[in-house]
């Protein structure tokens, strides 16, 4: 019993070390985002880079702070469905660019 408690405590300690590492990474990536924006790249490049860094940061939060990396398959399935509809939602206005060229078929 004592061994199980010790294992559990060690497990939580390991988690805490991961949280601190993720925290430091998020801080650095935030400063990177701001630093990159000062270069005033053309809009398509600026959008791609900013959203790429934001996606990395978001993934760190979701995977480690929200424990998605070790979550049950049902939760992952719910989120996969959500991501599918989210992408469809974001794609709608993107497809209307160029006066609805992609929508006309």
């Amino acid at each position: 019993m004592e061994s199980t408690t010790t294992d559990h405590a060690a497990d939580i300690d390991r988690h805490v070390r991961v949280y601190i590492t993720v925290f430091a990474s998020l801080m650095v990536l935030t400063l990177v985002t701001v630093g990159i924006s000062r270069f005033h790249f053309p809009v398509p490049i600026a959008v791609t880079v900013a959203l790429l860094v934001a996606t990395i940061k978001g993934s760190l939060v979701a995977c480690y702070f929200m424990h998605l990396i070790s979550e049950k398959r049902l939760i992952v399935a719910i989120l996969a469905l959500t991501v599918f509809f989210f992408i469809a939602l974001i794609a709608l206005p993107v497809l209307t660019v160029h006066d609805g060229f992609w929508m006309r078929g």
Partner: protein
Amino acid sequence: MEIPYTVEVRRDTGLINGKIGIWLFLASEVMLFGALFASYILIRTGSPSWPRGDTMLDVRLATFNTLVLISSSVTMVMAWASLMRHRFETFRMYMGATILLGLVFLIVKYFEYSAHIHEGAIPSTNNFLAIYYTLTGLHMLHVAGGMAVNAYFWGPGAKLWKTNPEWFTNRVEHSGLFWHFVDLVWIFLFPTLYLL
């Protein structure tokens, strides 16, 4: 009647009910913010000109607020980890820090809003400000809601720790999931509105 599956997992899902409930709620939240992000893209791509966020907004304050919200996410997860280690007083310290950091975020946002309104930059001024106020306003409501729930678990709701510590730990985990989601939304709002 006792609420079922607050601590023991359901055999069919392998999860406690609260966990599924909060993730389904967060899925609906993704679609809510997704609709607003889609509106932002539609308005921006349909506009002949669009101002860079940093020409109208204060990037230094927003960067500070981003660091504050990320810090609050780590204190939130540390609060949960403290409960997992049965350290209630440490939990209280971290949860208190999370609430205070949320308050700092709102105060900074208040000063940002005040400065804009003082300059006459209100939602009806242009499309950029309309979508800025809508997105950040909705996000602020979420911060305030998360703070209210966290304050409940820091204060009166903490009584549950004495009678059912496992259930209390699960509830804190669920409120933490919401708080991290609020942080996650800001991670995308910050570059979208302030830097691009």
